[in-house]
């Protein structure tokens, strides 16, 4: 397991450093982070990864004996939150949602997250290196058009499916209905708690009276 995990980290490190090399903004962002360390601690499976930043890129190391003093910031999270973080979700949003526990210098985590989420790879320059300027430019334009078409189609498809499921087939509740149902459930939960507290109090009262009768 440790060897497998180390292999995985080595591959991830190579991939991320490869991507960072192709982003013209990375050197300045890495310079701001150089020497900083983030310790990521996953609850299940129990894993700890140290992310070290320097001007050349990042180093990912498995932490065998995690120590708070090893890093500038410690992040405790579950696998789902890690996915959200890597997917570009903002650190503050995850922290406020209670999905992320952060100790230490939080701005380091914010900068580290931006380094990956704001990654803009200059594919055209890379293609030009292999194909020449003109073919690379034509190919990039074609790919950009295809990307825009894909994004537009995905948006339209999402809207159509949503409309069909909620308005036509009525298989899913609308946002408003969902909010109202959630509010009702919250109220029901609070009422149940109150009822439980009253019943507890009554049970204690009955118990007290029974003990008094026995005593007299």
């Amino acid at each position, binding site marked *: 397991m440790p*060897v497998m995990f*180390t292999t995985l980290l*080595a591959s991830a490190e190579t991939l991320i450093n490869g991507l960072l090399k192709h982003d013209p903004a990375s050197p300045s962002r890495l310079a701001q982070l150089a020497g900083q360390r983030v310790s990521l601690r996953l609850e299940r499976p129990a894993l700890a990864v140290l992310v070290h930043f320097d001007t*050349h890129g990042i180093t990912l*190391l498995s932490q065998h004996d995690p*120590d708070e003093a090893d890093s500038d910031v410690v992040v405790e999270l579950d696998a789902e939150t890690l996915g959200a973080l890597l997917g570009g979700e903002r650190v503050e949003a995850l922290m406020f949602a209670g999905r992320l526990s952060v100790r230490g210098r939080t701005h380091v985590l914010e900068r580290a997250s931006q380094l990956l989420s704001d990654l803009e790879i200059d594919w055209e320059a890379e293609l030009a290196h292999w194909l020449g300027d003109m073919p690379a430019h034509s190919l990039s334009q074609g790919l950009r058009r295809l990307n825009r078409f894909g994004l537009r189609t995905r948006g339209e498809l999402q809207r159509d499916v949503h409309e069909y499921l909620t308005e036509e087939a009525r298989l899913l509740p609308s946002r408003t209905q969902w909010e109202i149902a959630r509010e009702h459930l919250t109220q029901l939960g609070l009422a149940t708690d109150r009822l439980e507290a009253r019943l507890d109090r009554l049970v204690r009262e009955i118990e007290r009276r029974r003990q008094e009768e026995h005593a007299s």
Partner: protein
Amino acid sequence: MDKRTTHFGYQEVPVEEKADRVAQVFHSVAARYDVMNDLMSFGVHRLWKRLTLERAGVRPGHHVLDIAGGTGDLALKFSRLVGPRGRVVLADINASMLRVGRDKLLDNGVGDNVEYVQANAETLPFADNSFDCITIAFGLRNVTDKDAALRSMARVLKPGGRLLVLEFSKPASAALSRLYDEYSFRVLPRMGEWVAQDGESYRYLAESIRMHPDQETLKAMMEDAGLERVEYTNMTGGVVALHRGIKL
């Protein structure tokens, strides 16, 4: 064994001859060292070194000594981990290996926090308590007096510092051991002949591995040298072991 002789692979040679003979081997293989390492270990040596890096616990500002650092694989990573406030010393007894290592590190943009020192591990030319971490990867078995080398490393280690010894060792299972013997004595020298045009050096490599102390013996040697909390981790079924000791 006579006091004035030592092992050079399976041969008994005068003590004063071993360093020169080892030097000849490494002068011969230095240029193709990295390629051969990748070929011989199928690239797994990178993983063994990465595990060493993980166990080293090096932080920014630390002083690290990489003995028998060869072509600088560990020193390159350490230089990034210690940052500009730290220092990495790449030491090797062999000038050819040191030159290849220095060129590789310079090509990778490493320069300001790495020093290169041609030094004998048995008599390290550093002040007592100088380093937070010392590593020696695939180098200890080539040292003539291993006990003296371990004592020298313990001397220059700071209190609380760690010594990591990555070295070939004894496979845990008999089946793997037989397979490993076949590979070491039949395949390796031929591979050395084809790629590095030097089959003899790679025959020495296989023989020197067999003559190297096993896991428990090396652990005891490190404890005798003054290191504490010595532990080892077998890798690839014990073909390689990583020993770690702390100077308290």
